[in-house]
């Protein structure tokens, strides 16, 4: 029991350190003082929410939110379909399977920044510049998620698969009826990981969007850094607004996510 007290104390200190930036952000967003005054107050001075009103009228937040949502939906849907299929294919024995696995694993070492120019040229060639599909296209499949599915499918007992094959089910049916229902953690992990990566993606929308009304949230945030160098907390109110949807989704889905991430981590 004494040991517990010590652990709690340490964890509380760690929690304070991890939460401090969040608190400072919130405090700056709602305070009425000149934020560049020294010393800064630890509590917000005459807290008010009018910074949010100012930001609302200065920046097309709903439009950016909508764009981000659409792109993320496309990316998540694409990820589920493509990764499940690819993960399933990798569980079947075929010639060259190891080479494909090695190839995919080495693809993860290619940084996105190295691919932007050719990717831009290809996307322009396809006529998908400044479009939702063009924004989502490079994110439609992620290698980590393929292997999460593969690990989950590998864990399905062979007897079930053999029984299904004997019953004459085709491969697609096996995937849909046997594998996927037993892999709900993997599906959840896929959804959350692909959502996070597409939602937070910054460099690709920076290059691909040509018009302001196709920009996504991270882009909008970076663009307005220079607009809002004033002494109020308006910029930080914008950051709060931008972070809110992502945090909300995460808080709702966190148990599913952490559970799925751990399954993938230990099996991979």
């Amino acid at each position: 029991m004494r040991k517990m007290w010590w652990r709690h104390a340490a964890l509380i200190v760690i929690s304070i350190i991890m939460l401090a930036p969040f608190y400072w952000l919130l405090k700056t967003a709602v305070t009425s003082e000149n934020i560049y005054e020294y010393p800064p107050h630890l509590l917000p001075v005459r807290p008010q929410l009018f910074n949010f009103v100012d930001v609302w009228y200065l920046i097309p937040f709903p439009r950016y939110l909508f764009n981000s949502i659409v792109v993320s939906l496309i990316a998540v849907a694409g990820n589920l379909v493509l990764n499940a299929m690819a993960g399933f294919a990798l569980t079947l024995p075929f010639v060259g399977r190891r080479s494909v696995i090695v190839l995919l694993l080495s693809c993860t070492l290619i940084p996105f920044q190295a691919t932007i120019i050719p990717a831009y040229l290809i996307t322009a060639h396809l006529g998908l510049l400044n479009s939702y599909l063009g924004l989502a296209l490079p994110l439609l499949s992620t290698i980590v998620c393929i292997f999460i599915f593969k690990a989950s499918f590998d864990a399905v007992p062979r007897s079930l698969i053999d029984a299904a094959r004997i019953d004459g089910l085709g491969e697609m049916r096996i995937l849909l009826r046997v594998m996927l229902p037993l892999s709900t953690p993997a599906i959840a992990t896929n959804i959350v990981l692909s959502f996070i990566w597409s939602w937070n993606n910054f460099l690709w929308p920076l290059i691909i969007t040509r018009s302001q009304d196709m920009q996504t949230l991270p882009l909008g945030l970076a663009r307005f850094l220079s607009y809002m160098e004033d002494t109020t907390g308006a910029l930080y109110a914008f950051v709060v607004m931008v972070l809110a949807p992502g945090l909300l989704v995460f808080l709702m889905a966190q148990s599913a996510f952490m559970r799925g991430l751990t399954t993938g981590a230990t099996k991979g």
Partner: protein
Amino acid sequence: MRLRRVLLSRFFIVPAVLLLGTGVWNVYVARHDHGLLEGRVIDAAGKPVAGATVILSVHDFVTQVEKARTRTDATGQFRFDNNPSHLIQLQAQDGALASPRVTIRLWFRSQDRVVAQPLRLAPRA
């Protein structure tokens, strides 16, 4: 049964509550955005001042730009009808006297507002 579980899951309730809240707020905004601004002007002793000029300035990126003027009526009250902005300043003037510039922040553009504190005239500094 499945439908009931879906409806009670947080993935449905949270967005539903958010949408509902947004809907209610939009209805409120639509009913209160005529741009009405009302207030009073008083002198240093606290008596209402008739015929004072009230200037409405609207926030325009960096500065405040004068948008409209009106005069107070016999009971010292004034009224603006078409405020387009969410960040405005009011100032009353009457000859050699003026009130300090009062900044008013609204929750949305053209929000109808009755200014709580009266504008108090004092000799110009």
